[in-house]
């Protein structure tokens, strides 16, 4: 090949690269206020496919799209506990065509300063679900009840191995609050994903695991995993004998919640329409079935936009306090 043709090949390659790179980063254009929605809507999920938030988003996006008359397409943008997705949402036009399917991790991120986007940069549309966190042991564990666990932890400070997902995470915060309330000290062992942690508990490498019911429903049903405490306000209908935190005098009822937000500045009429849509969508049989199959119906989760915003702010404050105490916020 001659120098000239090599030079032109390099030019072509560069041109292609520039074009493709430009194409990837492009946003969507908007026009004036026509009737909403007149084109498909994008629903952003800050986690990978198959995770809890992804399953939630896909389950609610379908009926919501049917109600709106335009499909809601779920797009995964995993990274930084959802912070990248939250950032993306603020960079899109505030036109209601970009929804953010998000959860408690947003509050943790705000508390930790992992995201620059405060709550006032979004408008909460609705909270859809409120999961119930539990402490679980195996069938063969030496602990049968929460009282056994407390007695052991009091006698052996720092020895009880409690598994949770992530460090400086929702799980660690709740475990820390529980330690405070119960007057114990445990050895919190962070795992990167729930699967690894469940295997570690079953293999006897952990004493107790902090986990919701949905991911381990099969093992709870066959009796090889036993929940010993639920962090819930009221007794759970499906588990009438399971103690809840307030029974023991611990006022910890935090759970992972999930809902929808849009960017600040979205037309109030559009927000209202979305709020109505998701309020309806959560009661459709399609969504109800998913909720039931994944045990997200243990307690009521729905909040309207206004209450949702207040609930998020309340959690941010709780997390901030707990994470400061844990030494993550200086």
């Amino acid at each position: 090949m001659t120098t000239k043709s090599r030079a032109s090949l390099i030019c072509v390659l560069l041109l292609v690269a520039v074009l493709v790179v430009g194409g990837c980063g492009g946003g969507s254009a908007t026009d004036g206020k026509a009737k909403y929605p007149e084109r498909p809507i994008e629903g952003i999920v800050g986690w990978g496919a198959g995770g809890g938030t992804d399953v939630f988003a896909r389950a609610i996006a379908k009926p919501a799209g049917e109600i709106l008359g335009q499909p809601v397409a779920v797009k995964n943008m995993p990274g930084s506990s959802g912070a990248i997705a939250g950032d993306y949402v603020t960079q899109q036009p505030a036109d209601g065509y970009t929804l953010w399917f998000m959860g408690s991790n947003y509050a943790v991120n705000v508390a930790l300063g992992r995201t620059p986007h405060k709550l006032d940069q979004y408008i909460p549309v609705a909270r859809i679900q409120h999961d119930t966190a539990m402490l679980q042991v195996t069938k063969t564990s030496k602990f049968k009840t929460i009282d056994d666990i407390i007695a052991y932890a009091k006698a052996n400070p720092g020895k009880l191995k409690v598994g949770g997902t992530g460090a400086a995470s929702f799980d660690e915060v709740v475990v820390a609050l529980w330690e405070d309330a119960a007057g114990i000290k445990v050895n919190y062992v962070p795992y990167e994903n729930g699967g690894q942690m469940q295997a570690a508990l079953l293999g006897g490498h952990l004493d107790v695991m902090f986990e919701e019911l949905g991911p381990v429903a099969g093992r709870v049903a066959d009796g090889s995993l036993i929940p010993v405490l639920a962090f819930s306000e009221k007794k759970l209908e499906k588990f009438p004998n399971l103690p809840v935190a307030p029974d023991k005098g611990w006022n910890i009822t935090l759970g992972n919640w999930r809902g929808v937000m849009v960017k600040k500045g979205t037309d109030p009429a559009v927000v209202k329409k979305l709020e109505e849509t998701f309020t309806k969508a959560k009661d459709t049989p399609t969504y109800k079935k998913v909720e039931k199959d994944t045990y997200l119906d243990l307690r009521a989760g729905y909040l309207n936009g206004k209450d949702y915003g207040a609930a998020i702010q309340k959690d941010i404050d709780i997390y901030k306090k707990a994470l400061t105490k844990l030494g993550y916020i200086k």
Partner: protein
Amino acid sequence: MDSFLAALLHIIQPSNLAAVLGGALLGMLSGATPGVSGTMMVVLLIPLTYTLEPDTAFLLLISVYCSAVFSGSISAILFRTPGAPEAVATTLDGYELTKQGKPHEALGISVYSSALGGLLGGAALILVAPQLAKIALAFGPPEYFGMAIMGLSVVTTLGAKNMVKAFLAALLGLFLATVGIDPMAGIPRFTFGLPSLMSGIDFIPVLIGLFAISEILRQVMEDTSVKVKLGKIRTSLPSFAMQKRLMPTILGGSALGTVIGILPGIGATTAAMVSYSEAVRWSKTPEKFGTGHPEGVAAPESSNNAAANGAMVPLLALGIPGSATTAVMLGAFILHGLKPGPLLFTEQAEFINTIFLGTMIANAIILLVAPFFIRGFANIIRIPYPILGPVILVLCIVGSYAIRNNMMDVWLTLGFGVLGYILEKYHFPLSPIILGIVLGGLAEQEFRRSLIMSEGDYAIFLNSPIAAVLLGVSLLSFIAPIAVNIYKKRKANVAAPGA
């Protein structure tokens, strides 16, 4: 046995056979295209399976999964562009064979080893799945750490030619694995305040950059008089003599792949890398690896398909996903009203056997269909490079963007492309970088988790027999090549004093 026969009758129903065949073809397409992973294809298909019977639905998903794991190697071998992360180890020797004008040989070995690995893995599932799942639970943090270190220790063998460069490359890989929010302490490391680096450097942009983009650069800058004299591309299966020669490697790779696949939380990519390392370690001619050695293709290819099957075991028997794709499948199980766990084995034995048989049939289909598929695909290599190069570049960029819909990944891909080009120019081996980045995170996390559990007592690594043996073997194989090197130098010095 009854449930086994029933399962067989189940599978040969037209709708189920169609699902397996269709799934295998879809999986092959998605695996062969860089940036479209098998995981993505499974996610896209799940909503479509709602209306299907559960067994048809899962036969479809599983065939996609198995064949995508295989077909990532096609573009890895032909264009040095791993179509799926599982194929990364295959690029090391596969592409070298292509450069020598023998792509059909590499592809043939890949098809043969993948299918055999998948079949052996499938047989292991049917025979001993629940028992194996229980054994896997014995693996705790110290054991996982031992396994990761064992994989890493092979760096001294891989880098026999130039130990210092191999170490530097491995350290670069280990360093890249530390970027992002520290998973054990929640503190950002080496993110330079960039939010997109907080979740760490994804493994795929590094891979596509180091291998594919750097190769495009190399061809444009240097190798302009393109090259490979190709005859007719036929994927002949390896000759009988070659099959016989590869058999020990394939058996070893399949066994290792099955075991690693069963370990919860570790997927086919790690299996392929560790299996490649072990093939190098036990080979009589380790220096041939990386130069187009058939064993270098057979080991990872048999292993990743076996691991794909193995990952089904913790999923079905314990309800614990062993890889990204099986995590997605767990969601699908729940949505279909099935609860994975020991009960599933006793109450739905027929369903389980249908799935296990399905994985075997999907792998058999690879053997039957892949040659035709490859023949079509492989002719792409005849397209003149000035056209082919930009097309590959487009696919690489789109592919790296598509993983997480994140621009940062595109910049990383391009950056690592330039880095890979420079490193190869100065004869740095790339395989230790991959070793470091694949195993680094595992090693670090499990090391620190062990110490959290033991409250800082290092004896935890020696108290576990499995961990102690793994670490002992690693230490030996780490030191041996260095010792041999020093010994040889001494001898040379003694033989030629004053030289």
